[in-house]
């Protein structure tokens, strides 16, 4: 058993055949984490007791020869923005350092009901705000492919853990690229489901019109399998859609011949690393050879996506983070004597610089006199961006783009320049704004051996086509 390349089907087969017990599989992962995660920093909390109890349950089923659920014994990690009952859930923030979740997120509950073994909680940028994982209040995550570089963010721990052999698969969250960009930086697969496809109940909210929960895995098929488990309508999340869940894994291996693929020229402009352009174009040639029809398309409002995103996301964040008030969530400044002081000092002590910056920007954009100029304007341009996708999807089945203009950058390289950090999300924020699904998968390495990612975006609730294409690409590499 090679723990670094184990897939969901592989892990499940080991447990089913009783070649390796679920318990031994979990323990093998903990041994790896304990010996190497000090360098990487992917986990914030290990949930051993819970994991081993679940592993015992699976081993009992296997011993009796009972049919096993789809994720039986599969060791997984959970981004620390998802609630896990009775376990510390911090969102990477000092504010929630001691917060113990009172209930499980629906996605976590579904994973465990499907037999997965949750090993622990994964490091991330504070409240999922960041593109490098350097905004974690506890410690940064390092890229397992080159520890002088960032793993991407905000689901940096989720991607690094999968790349380093610390979990077979993980859950992340994606508000502007937070699953797809770290997957690209670490050389793994990250899936952004359609808005409403996966319940957000129990996800600590950042920007509610943009937040998604989704999987990070080693293979496209694993991402499809995980999505099958976590997708679906949830009465606890009124934004979860009442749309049937497809057998996404069945799309793997389906012939891609005849599919029409759009290449949006706006995603191949200035600022794109030439090596990434080359790798992505090579991959597109592969699709052409497999019988796809490749057409040039235009998403003309792409250049406005970053400004729209950083208004909408921060405005929503300023409202969502108002709940951290010093009354309910563990942190209260001991210096506070009055109610007003309690709010201000608790928030001052609990929040890091990036969180404060975004709350201030969002509050500014919503404040009297600026609401129309910024917030309403951004919402109007969001309409135009969404129309771009609706138009393009009348003529093509999917679009293919790079994930990020650069490969993983060095720790500290962009830490003091928020605008340059924000611009690194240029190819990913559009999908969140339009609510369409997407996937990021590896498409080669640059001359330094750093992974390059390619992105496929699809029609609303058409994850199957995205997965079908991604699987075909994966087979060619």
């Amino acid at each position, binding site marked *: 058993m090679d723990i670094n390349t184990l897939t969901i089907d592989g892990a499940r087969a080991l447990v089913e055949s009783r070649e390796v017990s679920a318990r031994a599989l979990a323990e093998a992962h903990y041994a790896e984490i304990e010996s190497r995660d000090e360098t990487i920093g992917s986990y914030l909390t290990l949930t051993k007791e819970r994991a081993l109890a679940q592993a015992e349950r699976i081993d009992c089923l296997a011993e009796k020869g009972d049919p096993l659920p789809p994720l039986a014994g599969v060791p997984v990690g959970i981004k620390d923005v998802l609630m896990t009952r009775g376990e510390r859930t911090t969102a990477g923030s000092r504010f929630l350092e001691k917060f113990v979740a009172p*209930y499980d997120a629906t996605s976590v509950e579904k994973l465990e009901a499907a037999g997965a073994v949750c090993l622990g909680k994964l490091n991330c940028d504070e409240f999922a705000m960041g593109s490098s994982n350097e905004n974690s209040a506890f410690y940064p995550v390092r890229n397992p492919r080159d520890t002088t570089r960032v793993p991407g963010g905000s689901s940096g721990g989720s991607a690094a853990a999968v790349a380093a052999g610390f979990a077979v698969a993980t859950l992340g969250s994606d508000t502007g690229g937070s699953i797809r960009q770290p997957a690209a930086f670490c050389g793994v697969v990250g899936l952004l489901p359609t808005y409403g496809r996966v319940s957000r109940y129990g996800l600590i909210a950042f920007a509610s019109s943009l937040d998604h929960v989704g999987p990070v895995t080693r293979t496209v098929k694993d991402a499809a399998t995980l999505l099958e488990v976590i997708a679906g309508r949830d009465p606890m999340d009124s934004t979860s859609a009442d749309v049937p869940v497809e057998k996404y894994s069945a799309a793997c291996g389906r012939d891609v011949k005849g599919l029409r693929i759009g290449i949006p020229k706006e995603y191949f402009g200035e600022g794109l690393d030439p090596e990434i352009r080359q790798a992505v174009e090579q991959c597109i040639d592969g699709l052409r050879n497999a019988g796809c029809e490749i057409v040039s398309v235009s998403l003309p409002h792409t250049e406005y996506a970053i*400004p729209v995103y*950083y208004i909408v996301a921060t405005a929503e964040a300023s409202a969502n983070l108002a709940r951290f008030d010093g009354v*309910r*969530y563990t942190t209260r400044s001991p210096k506070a004597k009055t109610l007003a002081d309690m709010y201000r000092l608790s928030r001052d002590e609990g929040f890091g610089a990036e969180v404060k910056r975004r709350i201030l920007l969002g509050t500014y954009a919503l404040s009297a006199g600026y609401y129309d100029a910024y917030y309403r304007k951004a919402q109007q341009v969001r*309409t135009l961006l969404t129309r771009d996708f609706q138009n393009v999807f009348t003529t093509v089945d999917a679009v293919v783009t790079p994930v990020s203009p650069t490969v993983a950058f060095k720790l500290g390289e962009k830490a003091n320049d928020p605008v340059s950090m924000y611009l690194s999300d240029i190819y990913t924020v559009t999908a969140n704004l339009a609510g369409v699904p997407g996937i990021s998968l590896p498409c080669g390495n640059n001359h330094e051996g750093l992974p390059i990612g390619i992105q496929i975006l699809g029609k609303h609730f058409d994850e199957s086509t995205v997965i079908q294409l991604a699987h075909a690409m994966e087979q060619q590499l």
Partner: protein
Amino acid sequence: MKVTEKDVAYVADLANLELTPDESTRMVADLNSILGHIDKLNELDTSNVEPLAEVISAFASAERKGSEKFAYAQRADEVKPGLSREVALANAPDTDGTCFRVPKVIER
């Protein structure tokens, strides 16, 4: 400079954030640089464009209008068990066992 120290202080007050003088200086610079980039939106004429607050209704079936698009999200108004008081208070920094306790609100 669009945003001044005074603006930052005003917004920080609205958001209930405390900023040190150093933080405040830094935020003035950061907000100006971010807003400078955001001003790009003014290149677009949006006078006849509806604002989009969420994507579900934009993609929901065309026959359904307004709140009908969200009919699936309705549920019966039934009493169901929620978090117990003990669990709900467990993360609070200060309680009296029944309620959250906060500093005195009204001074006599």
